[in-house]
């Protein structure tokens, strides 16, 4: 065992992975320190409260440390961790979806004006996404941010492709309305407010 403190940012990705594979707590802490902030953003997008997101981060990292022995390094480490976080979040949210199943939404009217996110910071965007209904929030994240197709989302959530599309359309409609509102406020007062 090397002497001196383990400085997370000085370690390469391979060193981190090897240390975590041996189960060394200091390397696990270093890996956590490197990725926990980014992963919390991912989990915040899938949850309604910060406490809920932190629970998902906790559960997700435990899975990461237990499963890192099987990580074959075919993708980047942060991509692999993100996928685990998303799956963990989906597992948590699936229980809620069982209670409040998604339904097809008809007659979605999308605003015709051009959308711009200028002047809206990440915190506000997060709040907008988290204010969406449960089903819309998940489908929007999976489609717009993670880049899954509606077919893949339908398989992941056990819904029809049409339901996925309609939920996304509804999410988009709601978000656009919020963004327009914020943009108007920004244009008028120079500061966004929700």
């Amino acid at each position: 065992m090397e002497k001196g403190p383990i400085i997370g940012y000085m370690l390469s990705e391979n060193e981190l992975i090897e240390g975590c594979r041996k189960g060394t707590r200091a390397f696990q802490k270093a890996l956590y320190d490197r990725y926990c902030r980014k992963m919390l953003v991912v989990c915040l997008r899938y949850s309604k409260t910060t406490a809920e997101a932190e629970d998902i981060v906790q559960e997700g990292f435990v899975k990461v440390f237990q499963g890192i022995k099987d990580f074959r390094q075919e993708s980047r480490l942060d991509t692999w961790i993100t996928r685990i976080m998303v799956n963990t979040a989906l597992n948590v949210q699936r229980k809620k979806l069982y209670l409040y199943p998604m339904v097809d939404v008809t007659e979605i009217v999308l605003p015709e004006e051009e959308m711009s996110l200028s002047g809206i910071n990440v915190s506000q965007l997060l709040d907008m996404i988290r204010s969406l209904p449960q089903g819309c929030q998940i489908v929007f994240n999976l489609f717009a941010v993670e880049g899954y197709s509606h077919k893949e989302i339908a398989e992941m959530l056990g819904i029809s492709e049409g339901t996925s599309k309609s939920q996304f359309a509804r999410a988009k409609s709601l978000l656009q309305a919020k963004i327009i509102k914020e943009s108007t406020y920004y244009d008028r007062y120079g500061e966004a407010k929700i």
Partner: protein
Amino acid sequence: MERRKFEDSFKEAFNGAEVAPSDSVWTGIELELEKAEGDKTRRRLLFYKMLAAASVTFAMCVAGVGYLVVSHQQETFNERLTSTGETAETKNGEAVIHGIESDDASSSVAARESNESSENSNNRIAEVNRANATNDAPSRGTNHEPVQSISKTDLASEANVQENIVMDNENVATSGILLPETVQDKYADRALPLFYSARSPQLKVDQDKPDPGAVLLAKLAAEEQAYARLDKREKEQKAERLWTSVGFAAGGFSSVNPSVSPTATNNMIAMSNSTVPDKQSKAAGVAYSMGVNVGAKLSKRWLIQGGLNYLSQSSDYIATNVVAENNYTTFKSETVNELNKLPQIADAYASGGLTPTVPYSVNNNVKFLSVPVQAGYLLVNQKFGLQLNAGVSTDLFLQNTITPEGGSLDKTTQGRGEDSPYRSVNFSGLMGTEFSYRFGTHYRVALNPGLRYPLNSVYKEDIGIQSTPVTFDLGLRFRYIFH
């Protein structure tokens, strides 16, 4: 296109975005990982427990079957001994008659009669033998007729077989070869050749020559004795009376009913403020030992063995403080060793004795010199061996080494003595089984699942921590047998 643009703008907005989670998240992760590792250790211990239980059950089954077989053989032997005792008086006669007529109910009466008559005849044969022994060679032929006439007269009512046997004895007696008493007894139960049971034997033995059958029997007896001597010598050479062995064992340990109740004599405040005494006393871990042993056989089944072993027990726990010394110039890991050295103060945190820090892993490695003495019982002692062992071990504490992992804290080693929280001398109960395989006349390899149960807490009494780590291990021993 605007749709794609809308989605991409969201994706880009979150690129590089970061929000710091609260400190409790890492603490939660650490607790979950510790719990999972604990479960893993428990599963490993369960495996060793099951292995030990299975081996003991197996040993008991073998012992039961062995006992049944041995007792059955003993009964059979006793029965044979009794029947031999009965026939000892009648010598040859009864065995042959039983052999021929035992199925017939009416034959029992005849058998009894024949016993009585054969006793008489044997007495007479003995007399003839004595007479022959005193007579010289030319007179042998003359003695034949009266003896034959006596036997034929007295045993006229007996079966022809009996008559022929008597004739045989006469021939042997008159031939001048006096078989030793033991030889005659030894072959008493054997079925006689057809030649002897014939009503009118065609083959007449020349009176001047010794009976070839008797000569053969005498020769066989001598050969058998010679082989018996050889067998005995060979068995003595193969016997495992004394042996020495080297071995290695690995396993796991966990504490049984650990408790922490700091006493007024030690630093109660520091002990109470810290969770380390609790964690350290409850910690489960891995254990290994290696050493040399000597064994000796006390009887056919019982043996005694002892030796000298080096024993190492290693466990990990998470500490959340460091012990500051010399006005915060030096820091040491949070261990029972260091906590016990802190001065008696009202608040260990306030005085700076204990300083909170980020959680870090600490490895505690405790080393003992163990002197086991065990009694063993051999259930199976063949090429494959199976034995049960039980005994006590005197474990002399050598040192414990504290290794904080991945940090800037130094590794510390504490030997035995007043400063150490560990007892210098400990006693443990030992129990186990040994499956062995003998290859060659000098070597045996053995597999030893075993259990070690401390008879006292490994910590000193004034520390106030009770910890008796029970160890399950699986050993491999290589034995050299002296002849």
